[in-house]
């Protein structure tokens, strides 16, 4: 195997065009990506001029939305809050199909319930048990954690030491614990209401998908409200509220003693597309660089057939089985190295350019950043192997290039062109080698957020490594078929 690898590497490095093609692939990947990053300018025209609001960061380090109506008291130590949600109503502005009326209604993820939160700053830790518009009773904490808890109207949060326990009940007597979480130190306890905007997707003026987010609010009616261990008086606050906000989004509380009516807008959840630019925005050049990679990988095989070198190669390797794996290893290694260089330049440099243009970047963990960069290089390498196998199967460079491009890039194009519906686009990105682009998605789609999680806006239906595995399967199957064909066919 070693001599085979060595001879294939010698072939690769001594052909000027292939080295040049590999360099072109790196330049295209990094260059186009940087160009796209330089072109991303954020402007936030508001009542105070062009000032972009700070995006709050949750305890887990991710961008979050933390804007809601909160009727609360202080909680210095142990304590609990219990309430029965007896009514949820609300207002939706300009819903489809006409987008022309303000109607009564509750969006699926409108939330009213009880909450214990570290303090009133946006992004601070919390736990809440709530009744939602259309997803039953749930317990959520620290923005990302979400648990379904039946459909009971009674909700309770209690703290003993630093352990917070959420519970629900059908009758207020027998309680079922949903989950526990930790929140130590002084905190705030109370009732909350939040209603995320009504999300609709439409066509952009340049094709593609444009999302619209229309204001909604929710009014929750609580009865039998009882609080233990709390200090201070009841106070109402719009957490994250801005001066000059539309009147429908301004919260309010009415208190009759045991019954409370609370109105609010906003959401307490991970931020979706509003959480800042995603880091993979700097990698838009990959689709272009990929084409150069495909051409080089195909030629690495087909040129041998055109020049007749394949005869010498086969004579030198009587078993024939090792030839294509050796070629694949060489081409994958070269492409991986090149892709790693390109992505490692494009991501940090592109992020710097985007920050210079006032873009907020959705924060990700170092591990996710490394996964996006290394995954991009791996995706390029696996696609190169697929292209090489195609070259060996077709033995004609034009047919192999076209087949690979149609397999890898066309599904991505069709899925994002918004001509076909979202469900079909998602199946395209599950079943074709284009699934591997999922490795670049840095922010996952959270089920508890009604968001624009469609392929056209960078959300892939498969998890990152799952999508990558699909591309690997295609490459492995093609390489296997190519090896069998090479053994069977005349050269």
């Amino acid at each position, binding site marked *: 195997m070693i001599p085979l690898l060595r001879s294939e590497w010698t072939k690769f490095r001594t052909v000027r065009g292939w080295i040049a093609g590999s360099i072109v692939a790196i330049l295209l990947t990094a260059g186009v990506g940087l160009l796209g990053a330089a072109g991303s300018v954020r402007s936030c025209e508001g009542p105070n001029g062009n000032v972009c609001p700070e995006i709050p960061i949750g305890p887990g380090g991710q961008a979050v939305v933390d804007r809601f109506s909160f009727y609360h008291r202080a909680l210095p130590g142990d304590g609990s809050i219990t309430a029965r949600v007896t009514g949820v109503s609300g207002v939706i502005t300009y819903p489809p199909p006409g987008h022309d009326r303000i109607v009564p209604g509750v969006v699926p993820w409108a939330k009213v319930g009880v909450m214990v939160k570290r303090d009133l700053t946006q992004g601070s830790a919390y736990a809440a048990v709530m009744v939602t518009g259309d997803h039953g009773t749930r317990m959520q904490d620290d923005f990302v954690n979400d648990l379904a808890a039946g459909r009971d109207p009674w909700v309770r949060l209690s703290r003993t030491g630093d352990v917070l326990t959420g519970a629900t009940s059908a009758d207020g007597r027998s309680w079922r614990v949903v989950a526990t979480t930790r929140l130590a130190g002084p905190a705030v306890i109370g009732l909350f209401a939040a209603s995320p905007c009504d999300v609709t997707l439409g066509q952009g*003026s340049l*094709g593609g998908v444009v999302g619209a987010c229309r204001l909604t609010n929710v009014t929750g009616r609580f009865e039998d409200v009882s609080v233990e261990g709390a200090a201070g008086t009841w106070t109402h606050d719009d957490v994250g509220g801005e001066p000059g906000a539309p009147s429908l989004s301004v919260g309010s509380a009415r208190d009759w003693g045991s019954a409370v009516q609370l109105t609010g807008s906003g959401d307490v959840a991970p931020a979706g597309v509003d959480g800042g630019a995603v880091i993979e*925005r700097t990698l838009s050049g990959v689709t272009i660089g990929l084409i*150069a990679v495909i*051409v080089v990988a*195909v030629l690495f095989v087909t040129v041998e057939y055109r020049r007749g070198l394949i005869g010498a190669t086969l004579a030198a390797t009587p078993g024939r089985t090792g030839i294509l794996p050796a070629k694949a290893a060489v081409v994958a290694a070269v492409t991986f190295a090149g892709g790693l260089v390109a992505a490692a330049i494009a991501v940090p440099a592109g992020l710097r350019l985007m920050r210079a243009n006032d873009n907020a970047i959705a924060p990700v963990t170092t591990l996710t950043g490394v996964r996006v960069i290394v995954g991009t290089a791996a995706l390029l390498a696996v696609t190169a192997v697929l292209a090489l196998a195609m070259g060996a199967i077709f033995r004609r460079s*034009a047919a192999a290039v076209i087949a690979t491009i149609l397999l890898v890039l066309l599904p991505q*194009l069709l899925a994002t062109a918004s001509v076909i519906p979202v469900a079909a686009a998602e199946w395209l990105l599950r079943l074709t080698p284009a699934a591997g682009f999922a490795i670049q998605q840095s922010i996952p789609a959270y089920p508890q957020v009604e968001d624009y999680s469609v392929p056209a806006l960078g959300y892939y239906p498969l998890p990152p490594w799952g999508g990558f595995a699909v591309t690997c399967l295609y490459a492995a199957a093609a390489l296997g078929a190519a090896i069998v064909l090479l053994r069977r066919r005349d050269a």
Partner: protein
Amino acid sequence: MTAIRAEWTKFRTLPGLPWLVVVLVVATVGVGAAATALAPCCDVLPSRISLAGVAVGQAAAVALAVGVMSGEYATGLILTSLLAVPDRGRLLAAKALLTGAATLAGALVAVPVSAAVGPGATPTAVIGSIVYLVLVSQFALGVAALVRDPAVAMGVTLGVLYGFPLVIRLVQDPGWQERLAWLSPMEAGLAVQGGLAPIGPWAGLAVPGVYAAVALAAGRSRVGRSAGAVV
């Protein structure tokens, strides 16, 4: 005229090339029909849905043009062709005419049939899409004359066609999207199908036209030069 006849003979006797016209028709109509079957009601322009297959069918037009041009370099036939037709301009013109005619023939079937199968298309969209396919074939031929290697020609052409729209979707800044759309032969050229507000239908078609003209002119300057070294 003799040059065109020679090209016609080569075209119809080569295995594969006439089939690409059939592939163009099948791919365009097939993808259009699939998009029609899947399309959500009323949200998207009917022309866009009916003619969604053009984005795929154009790959066959590219393959055809590359086959007509690069095939000769691969086999060394280009030497014989140049001996028979010493005028490089005439040789390229004959090839361009033949490629254009073959693509036009395919498009004349594929586009109207797609419009009939789908929810319908405006006359502007139908005529514009046919012109677009012919322009794409000319662009591909120019690129193939310029770079000679079929794989590289295919990569460059499809890269320009498919690359721009993919990058445009990723950029997400309206100003840059519009600028890039004006540079993209596919995005601007297919504005004839409607739905792209900033780019008018016929003005957009000028973009693939310019690409084709530049590629053919560049190809003209390279056809036949030091062909021997390549073979």
